[in-house]
C-alpha cells in the first residue's frame, strides 16, 4: 500500500521534472530564435544599410547636432498663430471624429447593432481601417480631395480618431447593464428613447474620458499635419527644415512640447471634473 503510493508519487515527480526540463528547453529555443531574428535585423538594417562614410564620423554628427543646439529665439513670435491653429485643428478634428464615430460604434456594438450580418462587420471593419492607416496617409488622401489648408488636417485627425473612440464606445455599450434598457422598452420607449435614456447615461463617463484622452493625442497628430500640406506648427517645421535653419527647428519642437504640456494640464483638470 505504502509502497504503491511512494512509487506513484515518485513517478509523478519524475514526470514533473521531465515536464520542467522540456519547458526550459522550449523557453531557451524561443529566446535563441528571437536573438537570431534580432541579429539578422541588426545586420540588415544597421550594418548593411547605413552609409557610415557620409555620416562624417563623430565630428560630423556633433557638427550637425551643434547647429540644432543654437535655438533661434527670433522665430518665437511667429509661432503663436501656428500653435493656435494646431490646437484648433486638434479640437475640431476630435469633435468631428466623435460625431463620425457615433454611428460606427452603434453598428459595431454586438448588442445594439441594427443588423448583425451586414452592419456589424462593417462597423468593425471601419474601426480597423481607421486605425490601420497612418494619419500622414489620411492627410495625403484628404489633401488630394479637398485641397490645401486646415480642412484636410481636421478631416485626417478625425478619421484617425474614429477607430479608437468607436472601439472604446462599442465596448462600453456591450458592457452596459441591460436592465434600464429593458425597463424603457417595457414602458413603451422607442429605439431613440432607449438609446438616449437607457444607454447614453451609462456610457457617457467612459466616452468623455476617451474623448479627452484622444484630444491629447490629436494635438501631437495635428502638429505634423503641416508636413503634407495642412497648416499649423508642422508647416513652420517643414519651412525651417527646408531653409536648413536648425535652430528654428529646435524652437518648433520646443513649441510642440509646450503645447502638449498645456494639453496635458487641461486634460488632467477636465478628467478630474468629469470623473
Amino acid at each position, binding site marked *: 500500500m505504502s509502497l504503491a503510493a511512494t512509487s506513484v508519487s515518485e513517478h509523478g515527480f519524475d514526470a514533473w521534472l521531465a515536464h520542467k526540463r522540456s519547458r526550459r528547453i522550449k523557453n531557451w529555443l524561443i529566446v535563441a530564435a528571437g536573438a537570431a531574428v534580432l541579429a539578422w535585423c541588426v545586420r540588415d538594417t544597421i550594418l548593411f544599410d547605413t552609409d557610415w562614410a557620409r555620416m562624417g564620423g563623430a565630428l560630423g554628427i556633433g557638427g550637425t547636432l551643434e547647429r540644432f543646439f543654437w535655438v533661434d529665439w527670433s522665430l518665437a513670435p511667429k509661432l503663436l498663430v501656428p500653435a493656435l491653429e494646431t490646437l484648433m485643428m486638434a479640437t475640431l478634428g476630435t469633435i468631428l471624429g466623435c460625431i463620425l464615430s457615433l454611428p460606427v460604434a452603434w453598428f459595431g456594438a454586438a448588442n445594439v447593432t441594427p443588423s448583425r450580418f451586414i452592419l456589424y462587420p462593417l462597423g468593425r471593419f471601419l474601426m480597423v481601417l481607421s486605425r490601420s492607416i497612418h494619419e500622414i496617409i489620411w492627410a495625403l488622401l484628404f489633401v488630394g480631395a479637398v485641397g490645401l489648408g*486646415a480642412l484636410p488636417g481636421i478631416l485626417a485627425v478625425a478619421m484617425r480618431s474614429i477607430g479608437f473612440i468607436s472601439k472604446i464606445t462599442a465596448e462600453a455599450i456591450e458592457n452596459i447593464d441591460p436592465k434600464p434598457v429593458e425597463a424603457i422598452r417595457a414602458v413603451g420607449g422607442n429605439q431613440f428613447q432607449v438609446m438616449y435614456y437607457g444607454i447614453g447615461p451609462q456610457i457617457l463617463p467612459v466616452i468623455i474620458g476617451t474623448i479627452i484622452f484622444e484630444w491629447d493625442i490629436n494635438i501631437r497628430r495635428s*502638429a*505634423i499635419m503641416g508636413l503634407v500640406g495642412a497648416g499649423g506648427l508642422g508647416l513652420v517645421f517643414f519651412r525651417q527644415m527646408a531653409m536648413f535653419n536648425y535652430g528654428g527647428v529646435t524652437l518648433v519642437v520646443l513649441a510642440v512640447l509646450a503645447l502638449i504640456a498645456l494639453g496635458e494640464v487641461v486634460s488632467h483638470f477636465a478628467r478630474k471634473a468629469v470623473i
Partner: protein
Amino acid sequence: MALASLQSIPAAPRRWSRYRHPQSTIRFAVLLAVLTFLAWSVAFLNVDLLRILGAFPRLAEILATRYFPPDLNYVSDADFIRSVIRTLEMSLLGGFFGVVFSIPLAWLAARNITFSRRIAYPLGRFAIMGSRSIHETIWTILFVTVLGFGMLAGTLALTVFCIGFAGKLFSDELEAIDMGPVDAMRSVGASPLQVFQYAVLPQVRVAFTGIAIYTWDVAFRAATVVGFFGGGGMGWYLKRTTQQLESTRVAAILLVIIALVLIAEIGSGWLRRRISRMR
C-alpha cells in the same frame, strides 16, 4: 383643522435639479467657453462646414476614379517585397530596443517604487513624456538630418517612439502593483535592484509581455510611414508614387499596408490572449 393650517403655509416652488447653484453655473460657463472656442476655431481656420460634408463623397469619387484599379504588379515586385521585409525588421528592432530602454525608465518614473522621488522620478517622467510628445515623423526627420537617409534613422526614430509608448504603459502598470512584497523585501534590507527583480518583476511579467507585443504592433503601423521622410522601408515607395501622382500604385501600396496591419493586429491579439491565459 390641522390640515387647513398646513395648507395655508405657502409651499416654496422648488424644481429638482442634479446640480445646485455654484456647480451648475460653473458647468454652464465651461460648456459655453468650449462652444465659443469651437466657433472661434471654425471662424479662425476658415473652415467651410459644408465642405466637410462634401469631402467624403469627393474622397469616394477620387478613390473610385483615380485610385481604382490598384496596380498589383507594382507591389509584387521583388524590390518592393524586400522593402516590406525591411519595414518589418525596423519595427522589430525599434520595438525591441524601445522596450529594453523603457523598462528602466518606467522603473524611475513609477511613483511607488522609484528610488528617489526628487531626482529620478521627474527625470524618468520627462524622458518618457518627451519621447511620447514628439510625433514619430518628427523624430524620423530629425534623425535623418543628423544620421543621413536609411534604416538606421528609421530604427532610432521607432525606438524613441516605442520608449514613449511602452514607457507610459509600463510605468502605469508598475504604479498599480501590490506593494506588500516590495515593503517586505525593503524591510529585510534588499537593494533596489533586488527589490525590482524579486518583488516587482514577477507581478508584472505577464502584463509587460503583453504590452511589449502591443508596442510592436503599434511600431509596425508607424514603420509603414517612417520611410516617407527618408527612414527606409516601404514608406519611401509611398512617397515616390504619391509625388509622381501614380494613384493606382498608391492604392496598391495602401492595400498592402492595410493587409499587413490587419495581419499584425490579428497576430499580436492572438499572442496576447495566449499569454494572458498563461497567467
